[in-house]
């Protein structure tokens, strides 16, 4: 196959592009391009040329209308310069082509608010869930234990034993669904990939600070039914090397951090399937 290519979109307040690109390369991608949104809107860069799309953390437009709302509006309505194509059409094609999207933190908020997640029945532009203010009312930077659902169709989390340990850094991470039926379907189809849990990954928890935001069913991340689209509040790109762990000076840790597996799985999937 051709080179495995990851793209990280930045601009208008996206912050984690550098470490996300680093995680992609460390995870095995041949290339990781940091593309400014203006380069997509000018047509200089096209999503079609990539296999793995990273929507990373930050404060898109300052989260002024609610997290990622303004960018969701921009992506849905903006037109590629010199053409009639809307940027959102590139997104839809990207998904239809069976490619991978990982939204982290602000990127997860964006995916949910655009409707890409949970994306029931292939409808990726209809919003059924949201992320809102943490119950504690404040931004929080702290590390959380995430229990993984082994039965999830998610391709990013394949091979995770019990769970992984990652930092969260957000003010709006509480996951909510529009109806109980949506929540039930997410659970039934094992789309709630990660849940905040105790340090042994034994059970999901609603207790602060282990669950830092009061998320419904302790949900920290979800995927769509295909398992190729995933969004999560914790930051996998922030833990790809042991020195990023808050207790590395006192614990025996492997060289790679817990978050790297998501990028490795993505790279492996792209090399095998795309």
């Amino acid at each position, binding site marked *: 196959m051709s080179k495995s290519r990851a793209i990280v979109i*930045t*601009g*208008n*307040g*996206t*912050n*984690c592009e*550098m*470490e996300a690109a*680093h995680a992609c390369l460390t995870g095995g991608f041949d290339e990781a391009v940091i593309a*400014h949104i*203006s*380069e997509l*809107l*000018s047509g200089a860069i096209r999503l079609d040329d990539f296999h793995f799309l990273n929507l990373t*953390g*930050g*404060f898109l*437009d*300052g*989260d*002024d*209308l*609610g997290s990622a*709302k*303004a960018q*969701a*509006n*921009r992506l849905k*309505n903006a037109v590629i310069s010199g053409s009639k194509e809307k940027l959102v059409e590139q997104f839809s094609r990207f998904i239809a082509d069976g490619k991978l999207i990982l939204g982290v933190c602000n990127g997860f908020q964006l995916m949910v608010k655009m409707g890409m997640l949970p994306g029931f029945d292939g409808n990726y532009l209809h*919003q*059924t*869930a*949201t992320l*809102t*203010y*943490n*119950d*504690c*009312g*404040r*931004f*929080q*930077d702290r*590390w959380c234990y995430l229990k993984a659902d082994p039965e999830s169709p998610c391709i990013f989390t394949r091979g995770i034993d019990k769970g992984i340990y990652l*930092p969260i*850094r957000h003010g709006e991470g509480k996951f*909510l*669904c*529009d109806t109980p039926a949506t929540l039930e379907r997410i659970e039934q189809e094992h789309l709630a990939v990660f849940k905040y849990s105790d340090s042994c990954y034994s059970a999901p928890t609603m207790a602060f600070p282990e669950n830092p935001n*009061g998320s419904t069913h302790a949900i920290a991340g979800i995927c769509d039914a295909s398992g190729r689209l995933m969004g999560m509040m914790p*930051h996998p*790109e*922030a833990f790809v090397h042991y*020195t*990023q762990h*808050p*207790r590395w*000076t*006192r614990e025996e840790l492997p060289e790679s951090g817990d978050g790297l597996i998501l990028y490795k799985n993505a790279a492996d999937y792209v090399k095998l399937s795309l």
Partner: protein
Amino acid sequence: MPNRIEVALRHGVRDARGERIKREIEHFLKIQVTAVQTIDIYTVDAELPQKLLEAAASGPFSDPVMQEWLLDSPAGREFDFAVEVGFRPGVTDNVGRTAREAVEYLVGHPIPAGESVYYSLQYLFSGDLTRSCVERIATELLCNTLIQRYTILSAAEFAQAGGFPPLVPRVQVAAKIAVKEIDLEVLDTELVRISRDGVLALTLEEMKIIQAHYRSPKVIAARAAQGLGAKPTDVELECLAQTWSEHCKHKIFAATVHYEDENGKKEEINSLFKSYIQRTTSDVRKRMGEKDFCLSVFKDNAGVIRFNDDWSLVFKVETHNSPSALDPYGGALTGIVGVNRDPFGTGQGAKLIFNTDVFCFADPFYAKPLPKRLLHPRRIFEGVVEGVEHGGNKSGIPTVNGSIVFDERFCGKPLVFCGTAGLMPAFVNGQPGHEKSIKAGDLIVMTGGRIGKDGIHGATFSSEELNENSPVTAVQIGDPITQKRMFDFLIRARDKGLYRFITDNGAGGLSSSIGEMAGECNGCRMDLAKAPLKYPGLEPWEILISEAQERMSLAVPPENIDEFLAMAQRFGVEATVLGEFTDNGVFHVLYEDKTVAWLPMAFMHEGLPPMQIPARWEVRRQAEVRIAAKNDYTGDLKQLLSALNICSKESVVRRYDHEVQGGSVVKPFTGISNDGPSDAAVVRPLLGSFEAVVTAHGICPRYSDIDTWHMTTNAVDEALRNYVAVGGSLDLVAGLDNFCWCDPVLSDKTPDGSFKMAQLVRSNKALYDICLAYNLPLISGKDSMKNDFYDGSVKISIPPTLLFSVIGRMEDARKAVTMDAKRPGDLVYLLGATADELGGSEYSAANGFIGNNVPKVDPETAYGRYRAYHQAVNLGLVASCHDLSDGGLAVAAAESAFAGGCGMELKLAAVLYKGEAADRRDELLLFSESASRLLVTVHPEKRQAFEQCLQGTGIAAIGKVTEKLQLTIEGIGGSAVVQADLAELKEAWQGTLRDL
């Protein structure tokens, strides 16, 4: 008719924002409320069809999952009082700006000038409340009336009026733009009045220098040739006031000081800055010779040092005290985004890698009456913390290091120090990254935000004491996203080599940035009418000096301008050509092609002779108190752990993203439960490498009550000690000095000026001495000299304060050391001797006195110890290391133990003691704050190697790490003087500020 879109949470969705307000009302105002709901209000003042309004309401403005919206109909129900808070006209409204852009995407084209979207927030209160209670909630918590307006409606009034009417805070503009001439041929008293009424902050002497300039026949003739009269224009006078302000010109540090020491020995010092600060750096650099790592010091917006062959480090720390006193949120937010522009505008430009912040506040639980105009310390605390949170987090820059210092006198003015470091390519397009130049003919370009009336007279108002008439316009709100967009664009323009020079637009606005740039090539010519404005109607002088945020000034070669402007447009960044640089020696300003200011560069920059300031030092003895010896100091230790200056600041630190960019190695909190206080930060700016940047700081204003000399040496030692503790290398480390003083110039308002100035002189002399001993070049710094409050009767002066920050390198981040005790059985060492130095300590303060025996730094011995310790770190011999500072050994041991989740048993008899044997006692061994000490734990197998490394540097094995979760300290007499469960100690340490 403007439309109101009201967005409320759906029934049953938890209102976390409202709950937080409810908690704060109960906690701070002691008013009981049953419930608080919040509603977002967008006031659309634009000609839009109903369908588009509905599309905006249902699209970008609301979240269908949890919110519902109403157009021109009130959403509020079930409440007793409603309060709506919005911005006053002209105040930066970030949400309104984003909402407007969102509408533009829907419409498909820009909204015409004059039309806009405004944001406000509605609070609905339920409970048994009176209007006066609600009034208090509105003014003391929800709203800062300097920048915001509010309306209160009872439920009945709300029902009757059908909710709040749409209110459009459009700026009302002056009818006619006119440049005024100011007659300086007047009495001296009138000159003083002109300066005072205009917030020019110019003294009579300075006004007379300007008067004399305009009397010169040569000047009159040259002006006539430009079509100008003999009198100065308002543009010129304002420009000179900014350029010559204490804030921009640092007149006190440049002054000639007539100093007399305690023995009557007299000395004339020509500029403290040149004599001590610059000389420190040049002498240290000379000594380093080939090992000199300084690349650009004192001449640019920030200092630059070498990091490795390919990259350089840039660092700057600023203060934003006066604006934070008036509007803590906006002041601190602009403080952080403002200092971001300094490293960004250094050399060819740098990528920003971390922020630091240090705040000095009064007690947030302060319960005494305050002078009018002063905000309660708790409001300052809350606002500043939130401002820096938004500024730092939204900019995507990790906040890695900081502290909060409390002293009652900071209610007169809080100190808000914000620092930012950057990483710059050693070479950009073949040129050294830290160098830049301007050629005559280069175009003057301004990028980023637009100019408004916000931030007018910031430079001059901060050059005076805070008083009842401090101007409202000096306050402003930052917009991190506009700035981030601009940085995203400019860093790419840098790499393409599209500009030749870049600098920040900060204090003094264009008058200062273009004024300084024009100094590079000796002249400029710009037309203020070309500058993009937020709204029409600004006078030319306002355009010139406005400190409206998020702007950079650049010199762009004419051949690059088309590409530069096209690229800016693609990135959604406004860039405007204002004129060109020249070499004719004149700062030439026009408005619509007509000259409005014509100032010779030489007069602007060198026309001001140095101030003459008297300084007379005297030793002031404080009362000495000897506390009777006790058998048990456990209670004292708990009291210290819960003291404001020592207790955990975790509730604040968790609100700052300290990990974005992925390079954090030593985080603010560490240990078994991620909650032990780190001494310094270690960051890897290049993710593919283990080379790291280490940063730390020292600050101890309390020691100034005894002697600013020792305040200074202790601050420097604390910074370096923290830096060394985590593993920073002594071969590549530099310092930054930030002086915050109370006005030290003798005057009617400041009768003790000579003493305060002498304190400053001693501080500078000490800084020189200790930096030379520590091989620490100073690379940048800033002074803020008017930190007083004076309303005519009450005067509050802050204690003289030096914040000393260090930045340096660590070859291998994997060798970093944290402060948490690691495992039972490890040996505990105390590095450095303890002396009878309780003067100015936290222990003394807790017992209500100051004392005189302030800690004295012995830099030669300390430096040897630090070197030896660093070698031990490199050899991997150190399990943990914690610096001893506020609260001394007992506090450090408690922190190390509970952070590590291991107990500790220590023996005071083993502690190295320096002093008279008769004075040796438990109390001082426990709590003395003697400098240059480190508490280290070492694995027993590494004992010999460690002791060999540290041999001769003053170390003592004082105990061991234990399994039992207790801290036990045995006194000199052999019985336990401290014995407590770690959980108790940790609770004491964490409880104080947990709820803030």
